[in-house]
């Protein structure tokens, strides 16, 4: 996937050097950061073999709660942010806990629990916002998404969401790759029974992944509230799909047990660069009247491009993997195969098949 990302960025830069201009780079980094924060959250759940469809609604609800509690505008209660934000994040964590407990204690399917949660929480957002919009106008929260460190002109070179993303990535990478907890997450995703029989408190660890997911959804929700400046139940719709796509592009398998934080970061970047690229891509040309013109993507093609890029990226990625695996096997059998071909090349069983793994059809990406 890294290759795909580099190719995309290069292509976009060639087509439009503004792609790597200061302003667009900062914006894209901010977008990647906001997606990445909750994609990492959902990554924990996916690696442990679950799924969390409610994360988009959690993002929305966190923002709506903050707006409701801390906005000084019409409809807001006007409490200070240091009340609004912790309460909203607390609610997010409780949602994760509730869903996690339903899934682990009652042994319900994560898909349906978090689908129910997604709808329910969207309804809660809608009710809190009274079906309308809550404005955060004038709130100091707005500085979060828009400000940052190292001011240069009107831009902050390191937007705060990027800092938060780096912090989240660091902690997540540590937790997932260097702690006992992370080891358990992988073990549960790889073989739940084996984990259970090894004495791991599977339910607790699994529940934690939902708490982490919802918690990071909450953190992302704070960022989005700040970025959008006004909240309604519309915010966050379908975000779970972007997060899942980012995780899967980054190497997570929905069967569980696979994926890395770095991969998810790259997956998030791919998703956001596609989005940004659709707006940035351009081709200068000269029309029949010899006027210099710039060709841009028709907005109707947006989805075609997103879909096609995702498909092409996973297909290429897979082909690279298959070719590598084949080469490795060929290499291992090199001596034998040569001797065989010299022995009776004519009747030789054709050596085409890609016997990637031991299982006849293990899938990847």
């Amino acid at each position, binding site marked *: 996937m890294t290759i795909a990302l580099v190719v995309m960025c290069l292509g976009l830069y060639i087509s439009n050097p503004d792609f790597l201009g200061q*302003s667009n780079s900062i914006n894209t980094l901010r977008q990647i950061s906001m997606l990445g924060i909750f994609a990492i959250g959902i990554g924990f759940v996916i690696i442990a073999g679950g799924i969390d469809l409610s994360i988009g609604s959690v993002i929305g609800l966190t923002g709506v709660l903050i707006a409701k509690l801390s906005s000084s505008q019409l409809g807001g209660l006007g409490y200070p942010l240091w009340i609004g934000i912790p309460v909203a994040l607390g609610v997010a964590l409780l949602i994760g806990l509730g869903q996690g407990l339903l899934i682990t204690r009652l042994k319900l399917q994560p898909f349906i629990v978090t689908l129910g949660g997604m709808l329910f929480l969207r309804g809660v957002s809608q009710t809190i916002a009274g079906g309308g919009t809550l*404005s955060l106008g*004038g709130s100091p929260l707005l500085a979060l998404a828009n400000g940052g460190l190292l001011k240069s002109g009107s831009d902050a070179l390191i937007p705060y969401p990027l800092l938060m993303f780096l912090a989240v990535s660091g902690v997540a990478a540590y937790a997932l790759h260097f702690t006992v907890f992370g080891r358990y997450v992988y073990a549960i995703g790889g073989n739940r029974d084996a984990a259970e029989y090894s004495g791991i408190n599977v339910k607790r660890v699994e529940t934690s992944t939902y708490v982490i997911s919802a918690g990071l959804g909450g953190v992302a929700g704070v960022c989005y509230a700040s*970025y*959008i400046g*006004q909240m309604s139940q519309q915010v966050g719709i379908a975000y779970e799909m972007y997060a899942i796509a980012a995780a899967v592009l980054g190497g997570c398998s929905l069967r569980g047990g696979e994926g890395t934080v770095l991969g998810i970061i790259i997956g998030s970047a791919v998703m956001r660069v596609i989005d940004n690229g659709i707006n940035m891509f351009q081709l200068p040309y000269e029309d029949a009247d010899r006027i210099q013109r710039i060709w841009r993507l028709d*907005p109707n093609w*947006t989805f075609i491009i997103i879909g096609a890029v995702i498909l092409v990226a996973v297909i290429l990625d897979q082909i690279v993997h298959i070719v590598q695996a084949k080469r490795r096997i060929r290499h291992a059998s090199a001596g034998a195969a040569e001797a065989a071909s010299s022995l009776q090349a004519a009747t030789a069983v054709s050596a085409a098949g890609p016997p990637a793994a031991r299982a006849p059809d293990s899938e990847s990406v």
Partner: protein
Amino acid sequence: NEKSEGTGAAPAEGGGAKPKIVKLAFVTNNASEFWKIAQAGVRKYEQESKVQVDVKMPSNGTTEEQNQILENLSSQGYDAIAVSAIAPADQVPVLNKVAEKSKLITFDSDAPASSRLLYIGTNNHEAGKALGAHIVKLLPDGGKMAVFVGTLSADNAKQRLQGIQDAIAGKNIEIVDKREDNTDRAKARSNVEDIINAHPDLKLVAGLWSYNGPAIAAAIEALGKKGKVLAAVFDEEEETLTAIENGTISATVVQKPFQFGYLASKWAHELSVKPDTAKAQIPANKSIDTGIDVIEKTNVATFKQQLAEMKK
């Protein structure tokens, strides 16, 4: 012979047949802040006349959902239904079916081909033209502009855009990009940022849907392009009005949703309880124009005050 419940202090009609409950419904095309203002109009009428008007909002804003709501209301025997049709041309069969059983009024978005009794609202094409005229004023030397919207396929978006295009025709103003966000508000903002970055010579951005105003204001401010990229939008979101006050957005064209709510409730009620007199009062063109306003820096303060009154 139904017993009236409660204590002895029963109202006069107690003991006789209960008065029939008038069932009235006000069906919007989605759930948004805009309709909260209309709802305020509905509530005001409810208080004045002591009837109940049920407000229905299709949460996803799809035709299918609205059709279902309409069929539902009609099968429950509603006396009158007011609706903002999502896809007027194609909902005619459903609307006509509803009109067979209930008094049907349209508001906000008309369905002239149906057998509705009356339309209350404004003309989105006219509203677009009004904004377009304002854009021409803002860009006397012409220039490039971009348009932002949820989905261009929505009727009101199409009509507003057409209005703008009609007004800027021949004025050397070019629409270089149109971007959809599919109601994702974060995308609404990042689209504006991207497009401003992709077109360094962009002069103006226009937002067709209500939340595009706040998204445009936030993007322009974050990019430090205030004054360099002008903005003209629709509807009266809070951030939009604030942005007009501080000059980030030049103007917004607003409808009068409160009037939609109030007038639609009133007509629905009257058509139900005294159909003959009410029908006689329907204007010949079967429509009541509630008009539009262009809000600029000069009149934004007054408008905000009025709005606050209405939303109370």
